[in-house]
């Protein structure tokens, strides 16, 4: 039997600054740079936050597996200097579940997009959440299929223009966090890219959590979604994301939202439930006697 991954611990900030500084270049495959993302894409900011969280949790690169699907977010795994796994459309959670069951000593992180996770991979999301396998799922939500040319996605807000909804979208979008929580995810959180340190802390909490953790990152697609909907240049979009959310337990300011409605940010739900791998091993032990 392979031992489970060592439990992670959040490092306390040392006062004298003795802690080693985070250098993102240590975690990147520099020969692939500059990356393929459009100017001002929030995915880059989210990737920095994720690598920063990994650095602060002292996860060895050999103990880290990043699984991603297809789409703009899917390409992010290629830029990380770790065990990475670029899988088929919508199936990163299914691949990750297999990987985690075979190699429970790895810290498995899934990077997925809104279309990848909620449309093509919607079933995989709800079942991964139901099983409560110890995986961290980072969903980058930019409300659009960016890589394929800007089609409507399951999270596109009402009345927004995309290439397939030229007169405005009339389908209500998903609340991905509510979906994951309803399906049984034991850790659910949401954050915008502007608040990089808060995003990093949220990802850290998600990585430390034992069980399925789901983190929704509200990212921006400037070139395709922003331009079609007149949401401004990248700095304006990043700022409007901040205005459209309602930090949990704090603040109420909302105007000209990036996503319509008050989207709560922060840790939205944290519960304790038996983790799938350990429960499965215990069951095998009981049935097979080994």
């Amino acid at each position, binding site marked *: 039997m392979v031992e489970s991954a060592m439990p992670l611990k959040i490092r306390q900030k040392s006062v004298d600054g003795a802690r080693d500084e985070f250098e993102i270049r240590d975690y990147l495959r520099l020969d692939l740079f500059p990356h393929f993302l459009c100017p*001002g894409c929030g995915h880059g900011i989210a990737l920095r936050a994720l690598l920063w969280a990994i650095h602060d949790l002292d996860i060895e690169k050999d103990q880290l597996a990043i699984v991603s699907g297809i789409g703009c977010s899917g390409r992010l795994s290629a830029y990380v200097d770790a065990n990475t796994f670029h899988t088929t459309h919508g199936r990163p959670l299914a691949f990750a579940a297999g990987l985690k069951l075979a190699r429970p000593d790895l810290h498995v992180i899934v990077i997925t997009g809104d279309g990848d996770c909620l449309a093509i991979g919607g079933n995989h999301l709800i079942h991964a959440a139901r099983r409560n396998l110890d995986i961290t799922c980072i969903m980058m939500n930019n409300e659009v299929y960016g890589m394929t040319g800007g089609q409507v996605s399951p999270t596109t807000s009402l009345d927004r223009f995309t290439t397939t909804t030229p007169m405005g979208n009339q389908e209500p979008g998903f609340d991905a966090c509510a979906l994951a929580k309803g399906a049984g995810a034991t850790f659910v959180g949401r954050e915008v890219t502007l608040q990089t340190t808060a995003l990093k802390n949220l990802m850290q909490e998600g990585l430390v959590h034992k069980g399925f953790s789901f983190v929704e990152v509200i990212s921006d697609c400037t070139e395709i979604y922003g331009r079609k909907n007149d949401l401004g240049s990248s700095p304006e979009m990043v700022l409007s994301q901040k205005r459209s959310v309602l930090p949990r337990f704090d603040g109420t300011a909302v105007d000209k939202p990036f996503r319509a409605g008050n989207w709560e940010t922060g840790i939205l739900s944290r519960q304790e439930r038996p983790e799938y791998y350990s429960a499965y091993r215990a069951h095998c032990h009981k049935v097979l006697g080994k």
Partner: protein
Amino acid sequence: MNAKKKSAKSVVAVSGPTNVLIVGVGGQGVIMVSKILARLSQMQGLQVKQSEVHGMAKRGGSVFSHIRFGEEVWSPTIPMGEADVVLGLEWAEGLRWLRYLKPGSGTFISDTKRIVPPFSCRDRHHDALHGYAHHTVAEIVKQVPSAYAPNATGMAIELGNERVANTILLGVLSTVMDFPAEDWLQVLPEFVPPKTLETNLKAFEAGRHWTTQPPVPEVQEQAVPQPQAPMRRQVSLEITGEWCKSCDICVKMCPERCLALDDHQIVELVKPNACTGCRVCEWLCPDFVIAVHVDVVPLEAVSADTTTEVRI
């Protein structure tokens, strides 16, 4: 820290109203102390007028309360140079209102606690100098006719609750007023929270007791502790121009506006002295172009520009 200088006579004036000015920082209990004093004066059958500024507690701002009592009181505010007692709950606030003290006979009572307001630190650099009052306690005690400067907050911490510092000062105040001690103890329970009454009574006694102690020998102290060798941040911005996609996020988000796009639409550092090394550009760059390296070095070692740009 502790210093005192007593005048022989009591401060309550023979004719005309007695003026007490109570000042402090929001949240310290200025209003509570003034209410106690006002109620006490009413109990003695005197006319009392009190006026205050309040609502500053949330902002850590300056709070003051004028109390005038006597046979007949007309104006609710104390004219400058007419206060018989200035009671400061914080050192700089006490000094701020010192000019209201009656020259020749006024009593100055102040805690030596220092609450340095953020706005006195104009420079956001590491260990920056600040504009807090630079006078030592001994200097002030020499200047005023009669002064009491206990380290009330330190005494309160010893009693187990930092917030009873105001009651300790009230105890000191009670020794310079003509009201009997029993009346003070009668009024005190009306205004302090019932849970903390015991500590407050102890604090009141501690304040009265402090005035009877011989003054501790003067300790040579610096008014505001300054670092021995002033330190500064030395920031270097490492910009990988090849990766920059001119998305403008760093330029627009920099709180000091020290970045700009050059002729080739690549980010560059235009105001090296304004950069504080806050790392916002590093965090928000989606293309990992900017890396901020911050060193803390002695002031003499800082090059002319506090921030340097390294282009790759």
